[in-house]
């Protein structure tokens, strides 16, 4: 295994503990925005999709890469908007939520 992979493995282990610690403190009240927010954060998959489409050469690879980019972009924007709309309703300063 290449050195980069070992580095990535160390990072992943630390990230898992950070994720566990950070989430343990979230109250039940905010479980929906927590889930939706972490849904948004795995939208980072979009940068991987951009790289994948960048290295694609054949038509098939390009088609699959394009699917990855479109889906990744949907994950990012959709995840963000849903989370933001949910949190807007918990915002005390702005009582009226719901409709966009």
């Amino acid at each position: 295994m290449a050195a980069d992979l070992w580095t990535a493995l160390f990072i992943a282990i630390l990230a898992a503990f950070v994720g566990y610690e950070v989430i343990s403190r979230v109250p039940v009240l905010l479980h929906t925005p927590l889930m939706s927010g972490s849904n948004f954060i795995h939208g980072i998959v979009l940068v991987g999709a951009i790289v994948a489409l960048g290295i694609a050469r054949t038509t098939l690879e390009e088609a699959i890469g394009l699917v990855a980019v479109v889906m990744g972009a949907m994950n990012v924007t959709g995840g963000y908007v849903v989370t933001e709309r949910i949190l807007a309703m918990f915002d005390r300063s702005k009582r009226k939520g719901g409709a966009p």
Partner: protein
Amino acid sequence: MNDWVSPAVDGVYVLAVIFFILGLRAMSSPETARRGIVQAGAAMLVAVAVTFLTLTTLHAGLTNFGLIAIGVVVGGGLGWYWARVVQMTAMPQMVAVFNGMGGGAAGAIAAVELLTNLGNPTTAGLSLAGAVIGSVSIAGSVIAFLKLQGWMRSKPIVFPGQQPVNLAVLAIGVGFGAFAALRVETLWLLPFFLLLLGFGVLMALPIGGADMPVVISLFNALTGIAVALDGFALVNGPLGDAGYAMVIAGTLVGAAGSLLTILMARAMNRSVGNVLFGAFGATEEAGVAVEGQMKPIEADDVAVMMAYANEVIVAPGYGMAVAQAQQKVKELADLLEAKGVTVKFAIHPVAGRMPGHMNVLLAEAGIPYDRLFDRDEIDDEFPNADVVLVIGANDVVNPAARRAGSALQGMPILDVDRAKNVIVIKRGQGKGFAGIENELFYRDNCRMLYGDAQAEVGKLVAALKKS
């Protein structure tokens, strides 16, 4: 040339990761949560923009910039528009669908990696793993979406030999993938992906509506893990630092989602495995006769009871979400408080179709969140409550859970039956999701208010306004 570009890009990814973690941490309080997601959003925007710009300037070997731009604009626009226009009540299926998109993207990235880099055993192995989990996540999320949207029966779909069949599909699918990698023949990747997508569908079929909080959360965790695995596969390629960012963000979500999944399953006193493979609610419990009978009551009488109460506790469930009764419930609470009645809300962790579903609906209606209480916080208060109003909740208030031998045995419930009076708003005499008679409805202190939750709460509001 461009000596400064690469460290600058790394710096952006580091900052993005920091803001992702801070954004999740900000979720520990409603006061800070919104700021956190806005910061994380800005970080994501910069990370994506920098990735794109770096590819166009730094790595001459990469192409398809036009396609990338089109894909980002089309996908981003679709996601943004869809999430904007959808009703708040459709949030569970929205979370499912956007999560599925992430899983699909992870699977597609893995597919490109496999097609271009099948000869490298490390990359191939990691990409195969990412492809397995990503494919299962998108297929399962789509089924969850269809069930939540009501385009598919939400009851568990079962057939004989289901688990062996599912396992076989998974094993044969993975076998094709391994075969493709060993022989370095991309042709075998086609059955690999088809069988894994099939497994994702099969895995989600036997999971019923009330178990959705666990399932949505699980698929969220799976997508995170798939993204992390793709990240591992990308760290040695061009723009390897994007891979590190994916490893961190993906693992973060994987850990968070796994924890949430376990919390949800625990709130039902079941293991995650039982939720996934138990097909809970597919069969109806037979033979337990419940003593007594259900006693109906009229809205006007309930209004009088509540108007003269000291404390009223509302216990909402999925029925409130279906009837979209939350605005009426807010009106009811305001009227009662104007009369000097203390009104509290008891929220069961798995009430509804996603973690925290009831909290979101009540917040939407404008009910202050310090009026909402967890099961643990409010359990001792039920004996003091003059009236508990159960709106469209069933299994989570069934005292059968305290009785040995019941299918619900051991599930932590809201002990509403300990209140002086219990009013249950319910559409008909049917059973809850678990298919078990609710012993609460037969208790002496319980009355049934039959009808649509929104209509019945509306009647209560009208009656209270008159008095």
